[in-house]
């Protein structure tokens, strides 16, 4: 798309002030999808969790109590990292080539965390009592991994929202007169107590926020979330110290893949090829190839440990795993995507954003598949012998309600992007204002290099 004599800022702000027909069509489709999800949820709420879904009690009933919902929860938590981690890394490690996608990535984090929490609510037998977890939190944080998750997810969401808000303040202040007036209340909240001279301090606050967020990634997706499973001695399919590292790698893989898909859609929709350049996709594809390989490497560990001289109950779980088609679909998806990623790195002519987006989508879905498999396999052969063999083996396949709700969360994220894209600029304006030759990230207009140096003595100055 040509510049048409407009500045980069004009083009980034255009979605906020005008809307195309395509936008409304997309909005309508996503709204319809969301309504379908709400209908399915209504059905589940009225009918009761175990009546309207395929979930059941393990043991005598031969059911699986945690399934697609919990898998989706873990998946969304993982995806949430991709966004904010990229953005934070841009700030902390000065990876400025990724600056143009930082804002989209931050918004993805907020939406994905929301969907993670929603997935948990889907899985509850009595979601109306969800607030009990907060009321009881001071007493359960001593011992319940689920209470830890609530704490860390809330913390992560608060940090991300604060990060997003702080990074918007200068920008919104600068362009407020060009923003839709009817959204003023939102901008007023973002600009509470704003003073132009705060920029330098805000930049320093943001840097430390980014550090904290980066440090929290392994503690959330490689910590409290895998600990939900890895600490449960009753389920040998879950128990173990490797759950943390392997889940962290899987999470980062799906996160990176989801970011690629998201920015590709934005670039396509708004014609931002000149801000979000191919080079960004090429760089992301390298990271993605490495992460996918690491994920496959963990799969090999998993299978080999369970296939060689494994204890009976672990062997049974592995034998079931490799006998389920879904496992091989996940492995094939990851393998095929990995082969493409390597091929396009070796032969640049094979690269195209479209192909990369497809490969990334395959990876993201494969990881979701794998997360669900991890949870369900363990519960199909729960506990340890002799009870494992005395109880009937579990059976589980999600029904339409579960599919609707989980696919619905993806639709809601799409809807969220479409709506938020009308409220805040999705690319940081400094990035597109700097002549588009030296994209810079995050530095407020009032901050010059020398003051930034004073703020962050440890870091290299641009």
């Amino acid at each position, binding site marked *: 798309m040509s510049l048409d004599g407009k500045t980069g800022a004009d083009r980034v702000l255009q979605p906020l002030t005008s809307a195309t027909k395509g936008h409304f069509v997309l909005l309508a489709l996503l709204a319809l999808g969301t309504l379908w999800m709400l209908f399915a949820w209504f059905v589940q709420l009225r009918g009761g969790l175990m009546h309207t879904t395929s979930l059941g009690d393990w043991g005598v009933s031969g059911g699986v109590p945690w399934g697609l919902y919990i898998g989706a929860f873990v998946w969304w938590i993982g995806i949430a990292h991709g966004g904010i981690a990229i953005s934070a890394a841009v700030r902390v490690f000065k990876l400025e080539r990724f600056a143009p996608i930082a804002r989209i990535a931050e918004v993805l984090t907020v939406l994905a965390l929301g969907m993670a929490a929603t997935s948990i609510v889907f899985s509850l037998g009595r*979601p109306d009592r969800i607030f009990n977890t*907060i009321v009881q939190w001071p007493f359960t*944080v001593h011992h319940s991994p689920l209470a830890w998750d609530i704490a860390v997810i809330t913390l992560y969401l608060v940090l991300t929202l*604060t990060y997003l808000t702080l990074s918007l303040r200068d920008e919104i202040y600068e362009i407020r007169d060009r923003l839709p007036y009817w959204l003023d209340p939102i901008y007023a909240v973002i600009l509470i107590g704003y003073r132009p001279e705060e920029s330098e301090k805000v930049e320093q606050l943001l840097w430390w926020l980014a550090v904290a967020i980066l440090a929290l990634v392994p503690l959330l997706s490689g*910590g409290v979330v895998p600990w939900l499973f890895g600490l449960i001695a009753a389920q040998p399919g879950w128990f173990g110290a490797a759950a943390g590292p392997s889940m962290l790698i899987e999470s980062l893989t799906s996160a990176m893949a989801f970011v690629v898909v998201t920015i590709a859609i934005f670039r396509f929709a708004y014609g931002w090829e000149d801000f979000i350049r191919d080079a960004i996709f090429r760089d992301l594809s390298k990271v993605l190839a490495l992460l996918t390989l690491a994920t496959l490497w963990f799969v090999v560990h998993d299978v080999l440990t369970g296939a060689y001289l494994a204890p009976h109950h672990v062997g049974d779980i592995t034998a079931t795993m490799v006998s389920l088609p879904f496992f091989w679909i996940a492995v094939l998806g990851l393998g095929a995507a990995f082969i493409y990623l390597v091929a396009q790195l070796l032969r640049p002519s094979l690269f195209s954003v479209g192909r990369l987006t497809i490969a990334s989508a395959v990876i993201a879905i494969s990881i979701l598949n794998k997360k669900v498999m991890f949870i369900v396999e363990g519960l199909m052969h729960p506990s340890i012998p002799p009870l494992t063999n005395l109880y009937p083996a579990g059976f589980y396949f999600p029904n339409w309600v579960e599919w609707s709700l989980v696919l619905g969360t993806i639709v809601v994220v799409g809807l969220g992007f479409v709506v938020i894209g009308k409220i805040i600029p999705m690319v940081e304006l400094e990035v597109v204002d700097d002549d588009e030759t030296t994209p810079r990230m995050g530095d407020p207009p009032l901050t010059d290099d020398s003051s930034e140096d004073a703020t962050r003595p440890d870091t290299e100055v641009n």
Partner: protein
Amino acid sequence: MHTTTHIGLLVIFGVVLLPVYVMFAGWLVGRPREYRTVALTVGYMIGFTVLIVAGLAVTGLVISLITTV
């Protein structure tokens, strides 16, 4: 009860929150030393926390309206 597995406090307040402590220290010690903006940011954090908690309460309330037969 729970005499042996009381490690939650350590996990959350000793390990997981470490980056947050460091962040607060960085905010307070790092230059420029300007506490108004720090207070404002902490205010945002508290505000978002309240928003999330209140949102959860409202979610529960709305769901209870739907589920009550």
